[in-house]
């Protein structure tokens, strides 16, 4: 019975289903390393299958033929030096055979030589920040699946939970080095198709690299428990041809310039409140909740709170610079001046917090310098 079950599941593993996105085995991926890892995986898998068939086969044989109800009499051997030496030595040899290619792949993965592009990846509680070290590019990437889909009030899209607002964009065929770190707790940056899974440790930098063969969109997720929304911080990487990549670079820089210009125009309360609500739901809602009441003892309330109703400068300071030693992050680099001004204004005027204060983008832009 046991063997049967194993056999069936083994077949199952390779039967392959009609759905293209519905897999039961490891991805082959799109890098040389990922294919090597796939091969290692398959070799060790088949070794296990073979050993399993032999061992469970002998066991099944005994279960069927050496049962008392068939009149089997127990023999009384209970040791055999030859057999025991054999089943110590043979596995040992198999292990050595396995260790050699595994070590070779590992060494290849640790080859941290000069790369064409260096990107610093920083994990934040429930979003990723990407900084292109040679370019003036720095942005955050967070889940773009709407709350309604998560709460089952709207139909789920194909890339449910695996879609972001700003994907990471890299060129095809170039060695891209990632410098991974984190801002708060440990996260882990994982894209299965790249076979890159590396922890992002606060205060330390880990390195990983890829050379992707094929343009396309590759999706992954945070792989280390990092708090409440650990399941909601996906990674999307768009791999583009060199021309497309350069075009993207130019467009990104242009959009960035537009954003800083927006800070200079004058804003009224209604506009700020409208923008602020959007920003709030993207950046603050996860902890402070939609009703601004927070979660007792973990995430403080903003509704009727001393910070949101009190001194404006203090409120700005908390949002821009965070509160060290707590989950409150510094949002100075995460949000634009407009977004910051809007969200602070929103927090000071929503949920019955009627201070009537307006924090202007210009004010924040000054502080951000």
């Amino acid at each position, binding site marked *: 019975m046991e063997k049967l079950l194993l056999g069936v599941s083994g077949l199952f593993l390779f039967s392959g289903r009609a759905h293209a996105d519905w897999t039961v085995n490891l991805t082959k991926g799109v890098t040389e390393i990922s294919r090597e890892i796939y091969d290692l995986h398959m070799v060790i898998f088949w070794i296990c299958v073979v050993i399993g068939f032999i061992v469970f086969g002998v066991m099944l044989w005994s279960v069927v033929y050496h049962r008392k109800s068939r009149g089997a009499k127990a023999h009384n051997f209970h*040791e055999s*030096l030859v057999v*025991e*030496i054999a089943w*110590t030595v043979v596995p040992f040899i198999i292990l050595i055979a396995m260790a*050699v290619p595994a*070590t*070779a792949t590992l*060494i290849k993965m640790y080859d941290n030589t000069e790369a064409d592009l260096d990107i610093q990846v920083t994990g934040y509680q429930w979003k990723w920040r990407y900084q292109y070290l040679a370019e003036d590019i720095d942005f955050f990437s967070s889940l773009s699946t709407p709350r309604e889909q998560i709460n089952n009030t709207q139909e789920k899209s194909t890339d449910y939970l695996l879609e972001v607002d700003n994907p990471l964009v890299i060129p095809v065929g170039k060695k891209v080095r990632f410098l991974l770190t984190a801002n708060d707790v440990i996260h882990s940056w994982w894209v299965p198709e790249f076979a890159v899974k590396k922890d992002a440790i606060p205060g330390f930098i880990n390195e990983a690299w890829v050379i992707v063969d094929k343009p396309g969109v590759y999706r992954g997720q945070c792989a280390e428990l990092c708090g409440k929304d650990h399941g909601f911080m996906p990674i999307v990487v768009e791999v583009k041809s060199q021309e497309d990549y350069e075009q993207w670079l130019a467009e990104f820089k242009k959009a960035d310039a537009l954003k800083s210009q927006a800070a200079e125009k004058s804003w009224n309360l209604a506009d700020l409140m409208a923008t602020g609500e959007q920003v709030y739901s993207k950046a603050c809602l996860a902890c402070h909740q939609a009703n601004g009441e927070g979660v007792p003892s973990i995430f403080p309330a903003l509704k009727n709170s001393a910070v949101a109703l009190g001194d404006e400068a203090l409120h700005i300071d908390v949002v821009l610079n965070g509160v060290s030693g707590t989950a409150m992050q510094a949002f100075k680099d995460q949000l634009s001046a407009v977004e910051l001004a809007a969200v602070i204004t929103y927090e000071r005027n929503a949920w019955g917090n009627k201070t009537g204060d307006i924090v202007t983008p210009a004010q924040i832009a000054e502080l951000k310098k």
Partner: protein
Amino acid sequence: MSRIQNEPRWIDVILSVLAAFFGVQTKRNHERDSMTDSYWRYIVIGLVLLLAFIAVIYLLVKLTLAYL
């Protein structure tokens, strides 16, 4: 409990511990070992060989990394 006359020598202890590491031991040696009262020699040798074992793996790793 009767103490056996010829206690195992140090070299026997070392061989026994190595056999134990490997997991296989002849019946005769095995009976000799289980008759003795002086566990401490087995423990000391065991610890020393354990450290040696760790050192061997470490050297192996170093060698692999140097030549692979």
